[in-house]
């Protein structure tokens, strides 16, 4: 992300209404490698492909802000690998981490990983370190520390069904699991910041908070997210594209000031639920419209969504979630052009 894009993002977060409205997308392995003509595994394992694919997206869509920008990731395996989870790789599938906890009681034996040494985390850092000179020569900087959120990590370690069930059957053990995951996250974020002093934002991705009630969020979500986001940075960005009406009013209490959410809710509803304290990144339907629709469908969707929003402060137009697999260039271009045409 270059200085202009970062300043745009910060302006949105701080409540400015920009004209035209800025457009931004989370881009990562589900979309980028295939769009650029590579396999997912090549994208993960070849630094040059990783770099060139990111540069290609930036060059192709110079009017869009890509978040978090040069996201060094190994899909869902990044954080679980540090806990010792086996990572499974296919040439062109999302990698998958095998769960390591066979029962809630096994949390007793779980140890907090060291982000400097464990799993794929040193590889995440080294890839960016190796590429940092080229990234910075191109005018961009590493702006975000990125990680999956504490509940998401918990589900990778013990399974989604098992974790969500155990919130009811073994709440104390689940608090222990979440505390370990969160303490690890704090270390992991601090280490990323130490390696890249240009970082002034945190992105946490956690869809699991969308599956629980407000009361459970207050108990099992908010305290841990608050701690994970407790670092003093300018942008505290949260992604959750599961339904999140229950937790939305409390997200600002976790320190979050930028939210990417799903298509289950409208921009107006989300603005109301968050009392317009949080900048929103959304929310054109990613799969049915941005990936599977025509450019005309995309333009109609943009017009519908923006037509329904009265207050355009704290708004960056995007899709409801990360850039979906198979979203074509012409649809992304149609989205950007339509937003510019409507909000000049």
């Amino acid at each position, binding site marked *: 992300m270059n200085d202009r894009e970062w300043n745009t993002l910060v302006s949105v977060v701080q409540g400015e209404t920009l004209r035209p409205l800025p457009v931004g997308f989370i881009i990562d392995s589900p979309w980028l490698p295939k769009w650029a003509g590579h396999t997912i595994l090549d994208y993960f394992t070849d630094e040059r492909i990783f770099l060139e694919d990111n540069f290609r997206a930036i060059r192709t869509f110079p009017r869009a802000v890509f978040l978090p920008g040069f996201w060094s990731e190994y899909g869902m395996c990044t954080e679980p690998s540090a806990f010792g989870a086996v990572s499974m790789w296919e040439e062109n599938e999302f990698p998958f981490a095998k769960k390591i906890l066979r029962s809630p009681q096994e949390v007793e034996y779980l140890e907090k990983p060291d982000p400097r040494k464990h799993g794929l985390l040193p590889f995440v850092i080294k890839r960016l370190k190796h590429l940092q000179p080229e990234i910075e020569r191109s005018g961009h900087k590493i702006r975000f520390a990125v990680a999956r959120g504490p509940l998401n990590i918990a589900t990778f370690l013990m399974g989604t069904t098992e974790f*969500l069930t155990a919130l*009811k*059957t073994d709440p104390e053990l689940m608090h222990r699991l979440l505390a370990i995951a969160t303490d690890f996250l704090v270390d992991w974020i601090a280490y990323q910041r130490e390696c890249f002093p240009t970082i002034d934002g945190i992105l946490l991705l956690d869809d699991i908070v969308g599956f629980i*009630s407000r009361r459970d969020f207050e108990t099992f979500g908010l305290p841990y997210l608050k701690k994970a986001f407790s670092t003093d940075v300018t942008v505290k960005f949260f992604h959750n594209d599961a339904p999140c009406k229950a937790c939305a009013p409390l997200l600002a209490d976790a320190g979050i000031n930028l939210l990417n959410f799903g298509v289950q809710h409208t921009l107006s509803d989300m603005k109301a639920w968050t009392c317009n304290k949080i900048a929103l990144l959304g929310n054109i339907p990613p*799969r*049915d419209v941005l990936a599977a629709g025509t450019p005309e469908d995309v333009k109609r969707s943009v017009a519908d969504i923006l037509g329904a929003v009265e207050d355009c402060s704290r708004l960056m137009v995007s899709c409801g979630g990360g850039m979906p*697999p198979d979203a074509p260039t012409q649809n992304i271009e149609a989205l950007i052009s339509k937003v510019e045409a409507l909000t000049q």
Partner: protein
Amino acid sequence: MPDLTSLREGIVTGNAAAAVSAARSALSKGVAPVDLVTEGISPAMAEVGRLFEEGEYFVPELLVAARATKEIFQVLRPLLAQTGAKPRGRVVLGTVQGDLHDIGKNLVAAMLEGGGFEVTDLGVGVSPEKFIAAVQNSRAQIVGLSALLTTTMPAMKTAVDAFRSAGIRDTVKVMVGGAPVTRNYAEAIGADGYGENAAASLELALRLIGG
């Protein structure tokens, strides 16, 4: 008919031990296993579904209710087999090939079993061939395909196409669901029904078999 309130409460509150205890108690008092399903479990799971639809319940509450139901069925299943009671329908369920997520599929299994369906749960990462064999062996009227990932959704179409090639497509209704799946996608791949969430799956299954 003895009062089944405590059994229903056990399910609705996700108290598996209380629900199983109430089921055993009802059986000892002479309640027929099939009546336990129709008068106890089915209305309780319907209530759980209603609470979910109204935003009172979330996924953890569904899961513990499903867990209670599953434990009751471990007691009931052999008794139902002995009595020769007929299920409301037969369903084969699984998460499609390449996808290892089970939460949605497990919830749908519990909702359907609680609603009186006989459920053959094939687990996760199920190949089209395995679906076809299970449909043929169980004489299922419905096959349910689940997927959580956008990358594994195409495996739903592969499965539906395989059903057609195997000559079973006209004998079985196909219902699909999962976080990334939409009604449009379901129609595009030629499925018969789309369940927006687990709570809606029972009504959908009943509709598909004309129940």
